[in-house]
């Protein structure tokens, strides 16, 4: 196997393994659009990083975190139409990012690579970054697993039982921002949310506990990376979108599970 391909596979699997458990929470908490919004704000982070002269990846993380915390604050304050706020933030930050990128000048910037990912160009340094971030994100998620699950089921009940709601949600937002920043390399800004949601949704049919769903989502995500990359080589298609298409095929196939007698079928 070529070295660049090996790096691509490792990077993709690294991201998928974290995206599975995190994506499960995104699905359970109905935050699919939220993930999309975070990802879109990443472009703004890149542009700001370029304009101010620091690492764009750091910019992505900062922008995602800022947007995540802002959204959490807005949602905390009142029950305003969440999807409208998300829609404004999602497309607003994407447009702002595109404008800001134009300001920053195109020197050394491949916009398409950010929008659709450039997994075949992953460097050894990127790999270290992805696995480092992935390990931190997984550890963070593991640390808040039970309170986060309790809050996901019923926030008031969890709070009445003493779950640290605010702190748990903070850590969750932090993990989201980290994973989006890492996953962007693999599938790009426009498809990051897909990597979170599709494997988790596909895993639902096979799982009887939350942990099973998280693990199965990670496996489906990793398999999608391998299948997508293989398909991309074979058919000469773009790698990031091919991975998402592979996940999509997995999701559609998962609907056959009930007919095959899978235990988790409803």
């Amino acid at each position: 196997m070529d070295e660049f391909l090996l790096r691509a596979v490792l990077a993709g699997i690294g991201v998928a393994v974290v995206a599975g458990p995190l994506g499960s929470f995104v699905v359970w908490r109905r935050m699919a659009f939220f993930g999309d919004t975070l990802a879109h704000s990443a472009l703004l982070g890149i542009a700001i990083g370029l304009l101010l002269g620091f690492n764009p990846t750091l910019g992505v993380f900062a922008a995602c975190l800022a947007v995540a915390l802002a959204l959490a604050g807005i949602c905390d304050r009142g029950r305003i139409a969440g999807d409208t706020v998300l829609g404004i933030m999602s497309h607003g930050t994407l447009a702002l990012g595109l404008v800001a990128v134009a300001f920053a000048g195109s020197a050394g910037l491949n916009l398409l690579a950010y929008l659709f990912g450039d997994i075949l160009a992953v460097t050894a340094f990127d790999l270290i970054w992805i696995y480092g971030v992935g390990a931190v994100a997984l550890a963070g998620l593991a640390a808040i697993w039970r309170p986060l699950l309790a809050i996901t089921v019923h926030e008031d009940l969890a709070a009445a039982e003493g779950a640290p709601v605010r702190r748990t949600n903070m850590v969750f937002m932090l993990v989201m921002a980290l994973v989006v920043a890492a996953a962007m390399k693999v599938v790009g800004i426009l498809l990051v949310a897909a990597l979170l949601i599709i494997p988790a949704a596909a895993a639902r049919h096979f799982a009887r506990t939350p942990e099973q769903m998280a693990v199965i989502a990670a496996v489906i995500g990793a398999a999608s990376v391998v299948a997508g990359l293989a398909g991309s080589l074979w058919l000469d298609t773009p790698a990031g979108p091919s991975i998402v298409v592979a996940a999509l095929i997995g999701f559609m196939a998962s609907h056959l599970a009930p007919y095959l007698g899978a235990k988790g079928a409803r």
Partner: protein
Amino acid sequence: MNGLHSAATPLVTVRDLGFNSGGREILQHIDLTIESGELVSLIGPNGAGKTTLIRAILGLIRPDSGSITKRPGLHIGYMPQRLVIEPTLPLPVHRFLALGGAVSQGECRQALAEVGAEDIWATQVSQISGGEFQRMLLARALLRKPDLLVLDEPVQAVDVNGQTELYALINSVKDNHGCSVLMVSHDLHLVMSATDRVICINGHLCCAGHPEDVSRDPSYLALFGEAAAANVALYHHHHDHHHGLDGRVLDGPADEGAPHSHG
């Protein structure tokens, strides 16, 4: 405010509580106490602030005025209103029970057995009936080893037979654990027949006291009207009521016709 001469301090004391939301007064000048071992019903029309009051007592919201004092070390078991589990979340009943805190499997089994639902131990939460769901919630509340059970409309989405059973269960749980119960209810029959004390609110405190006193209170009758009065007639027909004071007549032609005289 009630006639109990208990030496023990009340479990919960609410004094002059006020709460605003979005410039609107949801609650004002609410006083209430919950003594140990009593079953207190909280009634009031929709939007009266019942759930808000409960959330304040649970510490989920901070009141804008007044105070809530809880006995030190008080354990509260809470059963929330209308809980919908996301269908994408695979969750067996025993896992739901364990979400509340550090509890052992044995404790979860015991709690589920106590509410008579041990056979749903491994069943997915999405597949149990409305009655089983409420029992499961009650079991989770019991796992807190509560001194006070706070139940927000505990018989919702339960059929009529199931409701009677569930109320009986709540009563036996209360006796077994020696805990107090604060229950939001829409069921005036039950409130008037099976609770120690009734608190009727509608933003402010309308009236409070023993069911019979409350049922005769003009502000209660104004809120719940003739239907409420009729319920009292049906369930307390062994009392010799005199309802003439507020000028209302108890039974109309549609009433079951409990033998009453009305002054």
